[in-house]
């Protein structure tokens, strides 16, 4: 076997060119975690308009959701101390806040094409409207009032 055809050339990985970030960032990513390559450097996913939040931002969002959930549970224990109507308004408000935060940041409706947001809002609004009518027809509000 001649020396010329021995495999002294480095093996070319076809995926290497696709990898995001600089080699230094990729090395730091491997060592330290998921936030070394800024989201802005990542290739956009289909339908994405701007970059997703960074992993650190995801963790901060999760902490906010946990705190709001804890407050929600605490408020539910105030039954009898404050009017039920106020408890219901507070709980629905916090529930809606959590819903919007998860849909906006974890489901990326904030950074994706508006069409996805419209589809989801259409489903949600249709559901709320339809079942509000159904509950009204069946005298739900007068019975709970």
């Amino acid at each position, binding site marked *: 076997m001649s020396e010329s055809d021995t495999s002294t050339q480095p093996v070319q990985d076809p995926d290497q060119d696709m990898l995001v970030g600089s080699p230094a960032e990729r090395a730091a*990513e491997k060592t330290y975690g998921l936030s070394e390559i800024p989201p802005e450097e990542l290739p*956009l*996913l*289909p339908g994405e308009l701007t970059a997703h939040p960074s992993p650190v931002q995801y963790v901060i969002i999760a902490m906010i959701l946990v705190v709001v*959930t804890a407050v929600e549970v605490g408020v539910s224990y105030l039954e009898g101390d404050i009017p039920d109507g106020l408890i219901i308004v507070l*709980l629905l408000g916090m529930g809606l806040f959590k819903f919007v935060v998860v849909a906006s940041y974890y489901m990326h409706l904030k950074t994706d094409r508006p069409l996805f947001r419209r589809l989801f809002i259409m489903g949600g609004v249709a559901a709320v409207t339809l079942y509000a009518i159904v509950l009204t027809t069946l005298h739900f509000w007068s019975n709970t009032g």
Partner: protein
Amino acid sequence: MEQVATSPGQHGGHEDHGTGTGLSNAKLAIWLFLSSECLLFGALISTYLLYRDRSQGISADDVYNIPFTSATSFILLMSSLTMVLALAAIQRGDERRLKIWLIATALFGMTFVGGQIFEFTEFVREGLKIETNLFGSSFYLLTGLHGLHVTAGIVWLLSLWGLASQGRLTQRDSEKVEVAGLYWHFVDVVWIVIFTVVYLIPR
């Protein structure tokens, strides 16, 4: 003018799904599916609200264990965090962390379903069966169907984890993880509504 990733070059070599809308079929399909699911869960939540206080015998106040359900809600919330971290990992080409976060999400989901099975077992022991009254029927139907959705999500996550373990889920497959994540987060937001409306709001 808005820049939108629609071609392979723009989104790092993901398969291009040329459609009339310029959007991928998978993502459009999952959003249409989730939109229709809003109506399904809306129907079940309305049914529960309607029948909750119109039943004879055992009621919600007799059986609910708010601290326990709060703990399982916390677990499901954390699973949403690990799910987005899995997506962040595959977008960065970090297949090791992708596998860790996918299996963590599946384990959180299994813990949630396990908690739900425990809760149902306790309720049955206290006398609330699906045929006991209208409250029982509507409660088990709503929360049970949600649990089935979580179970389907777990199967989906485990299949992705299996692919990742075989090296068949790489950065160019980021969209597959994103679509699974959208389903998983939807299951989470539905639970946010159920937890507030079914468990926390005073009767």
